[in-house]
């Protein structure tokens, strides 16, 4: 199982703050997980399309497309940050 969390604009667009699901078959990194989520179509495809500005964290650290995703991980998708 992995935990996927959504924040801010993405949380609203997806209508949930996250989900728990088995690590999808063939998914080993952030790029593949993003592609798998896009495959759902709708808001996922729109918000996570190439060229959209979003960030990914794995296990509470900023990640990039190549960051590995393993069973048990927490992966978060969110917009560029706007605190301060």
């Amino acid at each position, binding site marked *: 199982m992995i935990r996927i969390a959504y924040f801010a604009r993405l949380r609203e667009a997806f209508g949930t703050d996250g989900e728990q699901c088995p690590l999808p078959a063939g998914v080993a990194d952030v790029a593949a997980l993003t592609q798998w989520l896009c495959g759902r179509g709708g808001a996922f495809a729109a918000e996570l399309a190439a060229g959209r500005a979003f960030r990914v964290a794995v296990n509470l650290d900023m990640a990039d497309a190549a960051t590995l995703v393993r069973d048990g991980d927490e992966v978060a998708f969110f917009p560029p940050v*706007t*605190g301060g």
Partner: protein
Amino acid sequence: MSVQVQAEDFDLGAEVRAAHAGCLRVGAVASFVGYVRDLNEGDEVRDLVLEHYPGMTERALERIEAQARERWTLDAVRVIHRVGRLAPGQQIVLVVVASAHRGEAFAACEFLMDYLKTQAPFWKKEQTPAGARWVEARSSDDAAAQRWGGNG
């Protein structure tokens, strides 16, 4: 704890006194307080809600503090960021840095704010007369963070 995420307000005077803490080696305390403005991108802001990523936000702030302590010789660092609903005029964020000399205190204080703005997972949603909207990240904030070099 030197970094903190909280809904409650904070007291700059008390935080600076605590940072100096009677330490007679400290010659300089630089500090910053950010406030909610009533105007953003030309629109009236009635209030805003600050969302964060519990766990990751604290960890990001601690990492930013550690980077500042690697770059400069600092006696104390304090970062407080509020979350939840805030009205114009209210305090959002505080950074306090105590050091022997002013150059290091100023540099570290500005560095902490620049990195916090681009690295710490907070998101602002504004209520304007035209409805609610998520604040967009600013390229000027990325530029401010990048001038410190390194990969953040």
